[in-house]
């Protein structure tokens, strides 16, 4: 894995953590009580954060799966 790829994967991990934080932040910080209806801003944060976390997770999963597949192929060639 080259340095550039490592940097890209690190960015994907940061995006995943950022998306998870966007989902959790309104409840952790206390802007949004659980028993009250959500405001538009909170709904936007949660949807955006969940989308971001999902995209990052899928990208990381695809990356890891393809890397493992290539490692398996190289192992069989030897």
């Amino acid at each position: 894995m080259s340095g550039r790829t490592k940097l890209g994967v690190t960015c994907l991990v940061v995006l995943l953590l950022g998306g998870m934080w966007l989902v959790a932040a309104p409840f952790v910080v206390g802007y949004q009580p659980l028993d009250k209806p959500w405001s538009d801003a909170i709904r936007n944060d949660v949807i955006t954060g969940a989308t971001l976390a999902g995209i990052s997770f899928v990208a990381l999963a695809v990356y890891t799966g393809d890397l493992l597949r290539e490692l398996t192929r190289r192992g069989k060639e030897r």
Partner: protein
Amino acid sequence: MIRRFVGAVGAALGLVAGLWLMLAPVALGTQAAGLDSDWSDPTITEFVSGAVLAVVGLIGLIAFALAIRDEAVRRGLVAGTREVPDPEAGAAPVEPAVRDVAASEDERVADLLTPLVRALAEDLNGPRNGAHQRGGEYR
């Protein structure tokens, strides 16, 4: 290369999400537009979070794009200024002279071991082993 492409797409979508977070307070009407209006704390938090995510997404996009280019140069799909070695191939490619020395070394070890292995096989399968199993004397 497909995994780098997927990573680049994910980073690009992260960039878009960050930009959307920066624009959302104004776009959704929760924050009045204009430089003279004071921003509320949630607006500032959302703007800063979006900016950070957008920068991270941009860095990831650039990194994956450069990695894709390196891979394309290594495969000969794109003309590059220098040859990029495959970082995931393990050790560096072996020079022909070194490879020849290693091959001759392997052949010499094989030449040394072959009579020994043959003698061991004969010893295990030979008549003396059978005599020993039948209770004969083995010297």
